[in-house]
């Protein structure tokens, strides 16, 4: 392969290839997407590893994310500072996990983090209620929301503490045939 690009060193590209599910071409394409969000902020030369962070508003305006009701949580989970401001590393990480080659357990781990609104490592009732409201655009009645949350905790809570831990979540995901195809962003 011709080494015509000057954005990354060969070692950087190699390490990106080893740390994500992307090929060399895809990494360069993703860099172009990242840069397109803010051409004046992102330099063309990453060999010296500049510390550039794009604010959440730009990330959230990407066509793949702008209509997703969970976009803020996705950006928060994958960003370093927890506010949604992403470096190129975070950007590549995010799309690598959401690509179709990522294994189920990796996706389940991050899905758990995304649905955990209060970041307490458990999916409690309030987390479930927020998730449900985002899923149905607040159109369910209070009663229905309460019933569905109760049923979810009933079905998946294996250690009976009234909230879902990561193990409960992963056990439930194993039984979901559609999870791999729905937890997938095409870029």
């Amino acid at each position: 392969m011709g080494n015509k690009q000057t954005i990354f060193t060969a070692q950087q590209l190699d390490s990106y290839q080893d740390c994500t599910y992307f090929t060399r071409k895809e990494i360069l394409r993703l860099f172009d997407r990242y840069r397109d969000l803010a051409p004046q902020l992102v330099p063309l030369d990453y060999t010296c590893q500049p510390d550039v962070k794009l604010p959440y508003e730009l990330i959230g305006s990407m066509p793949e994310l702008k209509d997703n009701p969970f976009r803020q949580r996705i950006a928060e989970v994958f960003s370093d500072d927890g506010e949604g401001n992403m470096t190129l590393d975070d950007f590549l990480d995010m799309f690598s996990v959401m690509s179709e080659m990522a294994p189920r357990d990796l996706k389940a781990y991050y899905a758990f983090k995304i649905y955990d609104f209060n970041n307490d490592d458990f999916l409690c009732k309030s987390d479930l209620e927020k998730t449900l409201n985002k899923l149905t655009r607040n159109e369910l009645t209070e009663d229905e929301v309460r019933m569905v949350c109760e049923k979810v905790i009933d079905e998946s809570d294996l250690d009976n503490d009234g909230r879902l831990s990561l193990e409960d979540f992963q056990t439930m995901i194993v039984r979901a045939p559609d999870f791999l195809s729905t937890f997938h962003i095409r870029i």
Partner: protein
Amino acid sequence: MSSEPQRPGSREVHDYTEEYGYHSDQRSLRRDPPRVSNQNQPQFDWISPHEEEDEEGSSGPPRDLRATPLPMALKRAIRQVQQMQVPVVSSRDSWKRKNAKSLRKLKDCGMGFLSFFSLWSKTLQKIGGNFGGGVQSYFLFLRFLVVLNFVSFLLIAGFVLVPSIVFRSVGAALVNSTGQEACMVYDPNPEGLVVFYNYFLDLLSGTGFMEYSYLFYGYYNNTMVEDKNISYNMPLAYLFTAVFYFVFCLICIIARMGTAARVVVATGSSTVGDYSMIVFTSWDYGCLGDRATKLKQKNIHYQLQVDLEEESIKKRAAALTLSQKIVLYSLRVSMCFVSYGLIIAAFYGIFVATEFSQVKNGQGGILGLFFEYLPSIVITAGNFVVPLLCDQIALIERYSPSTTVIVALLRAVFLRLVSLGVLLFTLWRQITCEGAENTGECKLCQYNHLLYPCWETRVGQEMYKLTLFDFLINIAVLVLVEFPRRMVVDNWSNKLSQWVGRQEFVVPANVLGLVYGQTVVWTGALFCPLLPLINTLKFILLFYFKKITLFHNCRPALKTFRSTTSTFFFLVVLLFGLGLGTVVMIYSLSEIRPSMGCGPFRFFPSMWSIVPTSFNNLSIITQDFLFFIGSQSFSIPLFALSCVVMCYVVALASVYGKSVALLRAQIKLEGRDKQFLVKQIEMLSRRQQILKQTAGASS
């Protein structure tokens, strides 16, 4: 869980709480104060990477690194550490690792290359993003059928069509003509001047200039070419290709079912965990566009409402009194009779239409064409009207929504496939003089040579007409119903058009159409060898037409269709169709006498009899070997062995199921143990505090 906290990285990276971890403050997305339980954080063991090198395998460390849930900077640091340890490894191990890495790169390249060939993948992604998995599964199924038909056509072309073209003028007849002269009269070419529009009519009905061509069975010769280098037995090739075509399709379908079934079996019963599934796995992150997102949200809302409603229906049904139950069940039974009565009426209609069409055979012009297509018209009309009525009946029966869908589907499948069977039955009656082959018109040749001088071509023509008519109807519905409906609904807003609304892409009905079309091809493949090619073209055009109507006329369905279980269901229904085709093929091969005036099997008492004839030409050793395989001393031990293997596999499957249940119970128990221990610790620490306080107070 807590027994092996710091196990070094292993090949199976399933449970992150055990294997990798890092200190929580490095992932600073959590700005909250320290948590109580640290167990959810992945742990990484920096200390003992040596054990990694001992367990060498094709999946080297880089693969594990990609699958770890750590931020990029940390992954790169780990990678650096791993790379620095490489010189410690022996040269043999490093050579193995380099091999593995280059093999992986080659595989990635190969996958990239193959995906270039994958048909329509971008279109399918777009459909999935905008309309959901259910509609996408229909188009995936259609693509599967296109590929299947095309590959079968290549098979048939390679073994039957091309040799036939090449050896057309060469070769000697296999068996000399025996039998009555009258049976061998077959003159498909029209005489004299033909009016020009007759060509168009012939194209649609497969008669005239199309009849005596490679399209139909009658054109192939029963020659055997024997040269010093090549010997090619045309009839034998024809027979074996037809049989192998069915076996090949069966293998493809079962292979595809295997992948779908694996998912269905692994996830167990689909009713458990319904709500968790909907809440956590139904959001499609690949959904694009504001409109699609809103629709998806409405979709999920509707799904949850339907599920809650089903629960309340179940509760109500359980609370019915005895008299109400009796009323309900008797209603259901009577409605069942009504629906089957409708289906039988449709069958009778097809029967009468086919007989009438055969009687009126030979009439020219547009009226003649109408009579030719009469069976197809009646079948299609039945297929439109009866399911509509069955849907209304299903509403009266008051099953739960999911049961209603399945019942309606099964009825529609029954209707479609058996209506085809009725058509075939009528044809059979006329060809063999209602089964009594030694009476009446069939006495001379054991088939009705007056009506059908070449009956195989006739059957092939019927199947050809069915295929063509099905395609024309699909396009007609598109142009005459769906586009106008959209234009009316969009431009003319009043209550009626609001109520009618835009077209919804109903997946089950469309899939049944595909299965029906494919069944027709399977039934007719023996008599019309080019039918798979025609079907390939038909399905390719259908793909584009359906895509156009989907994007322009349809709104996404509110009621979803689960995509993975539905793929499995489509393939099961396809197998029914294959079964029907196989029955037809086996019957024609063995029971009916081939036409004496045409085709590669003329002068044989049955199509299958060519096999014993050619068998005698094989060498003695091969004959003995084949006799041995067919004899009891081989087949009975083989049967016993396969029974043993099947019992073993079934036992294995049940053991896995039991161990899954056991592990689940174990997880529950460990959770309770953990809670108990935490309580004990709290109690002990409280006691200690109390002791300290009392000690401090007393001193």
